[in-house]
């Protein structure tokens, strides 16, 4: 654990990313404390510029809704959808990839055709179609993002399993008489985790971008204030109220950037350790 932390902290960008992400998480956690009312309520004068009013430091939109509240509650939505869809996609991808990689043969072929199919289809278009047809809701959004994101995980896990299966320490485990399931869980999976973790972190960032794109197009959950939606609503007011689209966009950028930086830090910290040879 210790050498991992040391390597991670050595990556300055990753530390910055971690700090930024913590800020975002804090904002999301305390959203209902700092902004007691729902972000959908009209609380003030419309089109207040930011830093003008003490009550609404980030200004209001054209319907008088507090932008600050929108940003805070939007953080919840982005993080929630990003993390949930990634978790489900990773579980699904690991399951399919592990079975394909370990079993090999006809099962592997079948699963790979299946995976390839989902990988070939244009991802955003597919997500869009899925959300549209199953009517936009937080469930359909998470589901759609999951369905388009799991193939790369499955391929990664499969290739890791295939290569690890040939590795001598796995063969040694067979030779000393360990049972297959035990080998998968104690020998193969822990050594495959590192690239999976790195991929998962980058997938979260992509999921947040996808969710905001969907909300921008009007396919977000109608009950949830999301950053993408805020930008979409601000489209008609580009000339008059540029800040309405600027700030939610910055929020997305900062969050995604933070997660990407963390992902890079994880990559640096997790990979050289395994490749390192002794002496």
């Amino acid at each position, binding site marked *: 654990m210790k050498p991992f932390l040391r390597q991670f902290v050595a990556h300055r960008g990753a530390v910055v990313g971690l700090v930024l992400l913590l800020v975002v998480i804090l904002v999301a956690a305390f959203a209902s404390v700092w902004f007691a009312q729902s972000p959908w309520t009209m609380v003030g004068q419309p089109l207040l510029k930011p830093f003008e009013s003490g009550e609404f430091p980030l200004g209001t939109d054209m319907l008088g809704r507090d932008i600050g509240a929108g940003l805070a509650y939007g953080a919840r939505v982005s993080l929630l959808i990003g993390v949930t869809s990634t978790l489900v996609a990773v579980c699904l991808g690991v399951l399919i990839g592990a079975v394909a990689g370990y079993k090999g043969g006809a099962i592997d072929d079948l699963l790979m055709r299946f995976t390839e199919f989902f990988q070939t289809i244009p991802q955003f278009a597919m997500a869009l179609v899925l959300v549209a047809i199953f009517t936009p809701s937080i469930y359909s959004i998470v589901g759609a993002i999951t369905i388009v994101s799991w193939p790369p995980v499955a391929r990664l896990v499969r290739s890791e399993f295939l290569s690890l299966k040939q590795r*001598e*320490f796995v063969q040694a485990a067979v*030779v*000393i*008489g360990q049972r297959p399931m035990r080998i998968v869980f104690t020998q193969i999976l*822990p050594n495959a985790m590192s690239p999976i973790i790195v991929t998962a972190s980058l997938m979260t960032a992509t999921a947040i971008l996808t969710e905001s794109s969907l909300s921008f197009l009007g396919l977000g959950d109608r009950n949830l204030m999301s950053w993408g939606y805020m930008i979409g609503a601000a489209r008609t007011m580009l000339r008059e109220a540029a800040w309405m689209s600027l700030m939610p966009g910055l929020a997305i950028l900062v969050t995604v950037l933070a997660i990407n930086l963390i992902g890079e830090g994880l990559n640096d910290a997790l990979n050289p350790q395994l490749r390192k*040879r*002794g002496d």
Partner: protein
Amino acid sequence: MHNATHKAGAALLSVEGLTVRLPRLGDRPYAVRDLSFTLDKGEILCIVGESGSGKSICANAIMGLLPGYLTPESGRILYQGTDLLQQSEETLQGLRGRKLGMIFQEPMSALNPIMTVGEQIAEVMAVHNDRPGKARQARTLELLELVGLPEPGKLQHAYPFRLSGGQRQRVMIAMALALEPDILIADEPTTALDVTTQAQILALIKQIQLVMRMGVMFITHDFGVVADIADRVAVMEKGILVEQGPAAEVLNRPSHAYTRRLIDAVPHRRSAAAAEAGSKRGGETPVLDVRQLTKSYSVPDGLFRKRHVVAVQDVSFTVQRGRTLGIVGESGSGKSTIGKCLLKLVGIDSGQILFNGSDIAQMSQAEFRPMRKNVQMVFQDPFASLNPRHTVGRIVMDGQLANGVARGKAEHRTRELLRLVELHVGAFDRYPGEFSGGQRQRIGIARALALDPQLLVADELLSALDASVQAQVLQLLMKLQAQLQIAMVFITHDLRVAANICHHIAVMHRGRIVEEGTPEQVFTAPRHEYTRKLIAATPGQSWEPPRLALAA
């Protein structure tokens, strides 16, 4: 330290006090320290050392090819009166290929995969504006013929992936010699090749060197090779030149302790008699009785078809308790496949594998699992055969736990085993990453012995280890065998090592056993032509390493 006597002032290349610093994270402060030697015209100087001795760094320094983080701190490299270390990159580029040629160790990755062989050879001439126009192509063909490649006219248009390792190395030599340089630096050019191919390449280099009167600096770790080709020898240990002198001197009367240790590690031919004395005559039923084992693989050929490759064909042999059978062969001979078959890591096509009388070949994995404790394996790659995330203690205990031994008992036995393989007591809680290659092999041996097997298969156990470490691990293995009376199958590509510790040798070629017998028989009276070729190709045949009493 022996100082070479040579004609003063005739030295082609003179390295004086070369010191290269290592970056802070290295295992020692200097990569090479105060290195001084000379290379004369028309002589072959062999630089010998184990891995990490700094011999490659020395070679790269001469060519000016050191990576950015390694810069020479002090010293001079004199060539034709000029100090190479002081020259500009442009000047060095002019010298490289034209006056200083270099060939490297890994032929499989040393050629640009998307340029034809002919283009790459012609490039040397193009870069130095040599032989413009048609003369260039003519010279390319001439060179291909010189290095012994077939059908030069056709080969020049081939891409490297079509050539074997030996052929690629010949192309490298052709590129290095194109402009007839004064000096050829060869950095372990034959280490990655088969024994028979190695012999051919060595002969080629020697022949060309004679004709062109080049000075050759040949880096190697194999004393057999040194015995075959060196005029002078320089021995390096951890960045320091510890001994140099004429080959006959250094090989037969080494003065430095390190040299003596290295030479002592060279496998001697006839100590099988000593091994013989240590073992009691085993029982009559062989522990392992293999009958007509056949194994083939189907390899995808193009898109829909599959090609059948026979790896092992009709192989039969037996191994008695307390005895070692050596299976010797080059790459592609099928020796490793046999190891995998014995351990049921792969299925077989036909044949029987009788273990203490019962045929394990037909058993399923589930049926065989309870018997696994009787047949164990030590693997080739010490870095890949231990799970980097498990402690050493866990690695050695896992087998016992998987076979139903109680945890307390398993732990006790594990500590005992670690002591048996001469590892220190704290190793139990450490991770493999903290150990050297030789130590990791000991851990592998401990793991294999944990289940008290009757048969141990060692698959190229020593290939990844340095010479001196090899000797130690071998000694350990022989001691353990004598003590525990284990039957062993020792798979190796090195006939010398097999002759050293095996009671019986089987030589394999293209999937079949072509020769069998005791080491004496195989070496003094080989019957099959391939065996004869193999023996002839084994380097250092004409040299009997002196037996030296080791100063502790």
